[in-house]
């Protein structure tokens, strides 16, 4: 399994919501050594198996409440009764990873500002720009010092 796992998720038919997947696709295309990538419509439980065997995990998602690109550390945490539907959130995924194996040493949440979640293939200019920025930030984050 990879040292680093990048998981980009979102709905790629919902304009800016595709941002996480767009970042994942670009990171994958870069073929960074030791980095594996998942491009998902949403987080589902079996991802815990991959997360549990990674040293570093980076979640990437569009965020309508976010004004600028944000990178923050996250920890395993249950977020309530809805925490395990057909899909879930990064903190809960880390908790599930703990239960099936181990929590990664480092986990980051990369939030990309989004404003338009209507049906559509195109991202808004601001989100498109933030996607490029996110790719650079994540590349630096996962590359050996």
């Amino acid at each position, binding site marked *: 399994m990879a040292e680093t796992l990048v998981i980009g998720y979102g709905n790629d*038919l919902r304009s800016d919501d595709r941002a996480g997947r767009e970042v994942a696709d670009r990171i994958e295309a870069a073929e960074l050594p030791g980095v594996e990538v998942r491009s998902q419509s949403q987080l*589902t*439980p*079996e991802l*815990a198996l991959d997360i549990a065997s990674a040293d570093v995990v980076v979640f990437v998602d569009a965020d309508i409440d976010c004004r600028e690109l944000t990178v923050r550390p996250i920890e395993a945490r*249950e977020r309530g009764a*809805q925490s*395990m539907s*057909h899909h879930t959130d990064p903190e809960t995924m880390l908790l599930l990873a703990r239960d099936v194996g181990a929590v990664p040493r480092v986990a980051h949440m990369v939030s990309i500002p989004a404003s338009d979640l209507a049906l559509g293939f195109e991202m808004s200019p601001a989100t498109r720009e933030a996607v490029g920025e996110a790719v650079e930030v994540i590349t630096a984050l996962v590359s050996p010092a």
Partner: protein
Amino acid sequence: MKNMVVIDPVTRIEGHAKITIGLDDSGAVSTCRFHVTEFRGFEEFCKGRPVWEMPSLTARTCGICPVSHLLASAKAGDAVMGVKIPDNAVRLRRIVNLGQIIQSHALSFFHLSAPDLLLGWDSDPAARNVFGLMAEEPELARRGIMLRSFGQGVIESIAGRKVHSPGILPGGIAEPMTEETRERLREGLVEARKTAEDALALFTGILDNYEREVAAFGSFPSLFLGLSNDDGLWEHYDGYLKMVDSEGTVVATQVAPADYRSIIGEAGRPDSYLKSPYFKPNVGADDDPLAGIYRVGPLARLNVCERMGVPAADEALAEYRERAGGIATSSFFYHYARLIEILAATERMADHLANDDVTSPHVRARAGVNAHHVVGVSEAPRGTLFHEYQVDEHGVLTDMNMIIATGQNNLPMNETVLQIAKEWIDGPSIPEGILNRIEAGIRAYDPCLSCSTHAIGMMPLVVSLVAPDGKVVSEVRRG
């Protein structure tokens, strides 16, 4: 209405919904409505797009069961081309669908319903989830995740990606299966089958503890719809439409999928975005669609077929029918049926993988537009899925209709919630354990409301208890 209970949102299902329970003047439950409160309008979005894009586009109706949409859409595309796809393409599509059934049913049983079944309806709601299950039954929970992962791996191996796979196309499959993939899947099947057998043994071991739930979780006569074939075997991909009643009497059979409108009508309700399909011959112009209520999905498929066609699952089906007294009419048996289908899927997949032609390179037919009005049907994990397309001479969609499994279970879900509410609600409050039973009644169907309304999102639940004058007496909210 003076007394009414509202459950909003419903948890551990896909999408947003609420439940409104009406009380009569004596405080007894009199009505119940399951509302789906999101709308996505996917059918409109797809108009104007080429039919060749439809598998990829419609798969995005849902991130949970995209393979089902891929298959139904690809089959509609086959029909547009007017081709018979290569035998091995059919075989590979069947394997993909079996993988889809395994992963979807595994999620439903191990993650969404097992906490109720194994930890108890009245257990601490904060721990009544997959983490509580991890604490109490760590090996079971872990194997559930592994089983789901295996199913996803099958999809990825053949279709190219776990979600929104690009490898299933009109005309067949994009790439043949390699020997390496074949062997890897065969190896994975050993553990998958063991997990299926163990889960089935676990469920049958505790089923007798749930006599009251079996009697009240949607235990009523209805029709059952599924795909069928001339051999009477469990069908999940092709064939014709067949409908039986609660006595097992065949009320419709040999109905070509393209003729589905001859037996299925669709009614709208003012308080839900979920359509209510019904069996048309039973419903007159002024009748309530409830007269044509039918169920789809694992319960229906097992009622429609004569046998599974594989040894272990056939043995399980015999016990299932003995316990159900013949045709299973309780929706609680959806859980049981799901486990039998997982077992059958592992056996069927093993048979397909044992066929040396499974690595044949002939997996795709090619043609232009030869038909303009087509229907593609497949059995999704949750039930029969219809994609109906009207295309112009260039293959561009001018009209479309999708009938989703969860929509077809809309009327039964309403009846189920009503039955549970009548059985357990006594007075204007809803104890937590009762709330959970109401939700679990919905969860038995494993509804995917993102698909059925073509909406997206989680499914929190609100339950409202409403008085005859319309006043909300009690309201419980989750999520």
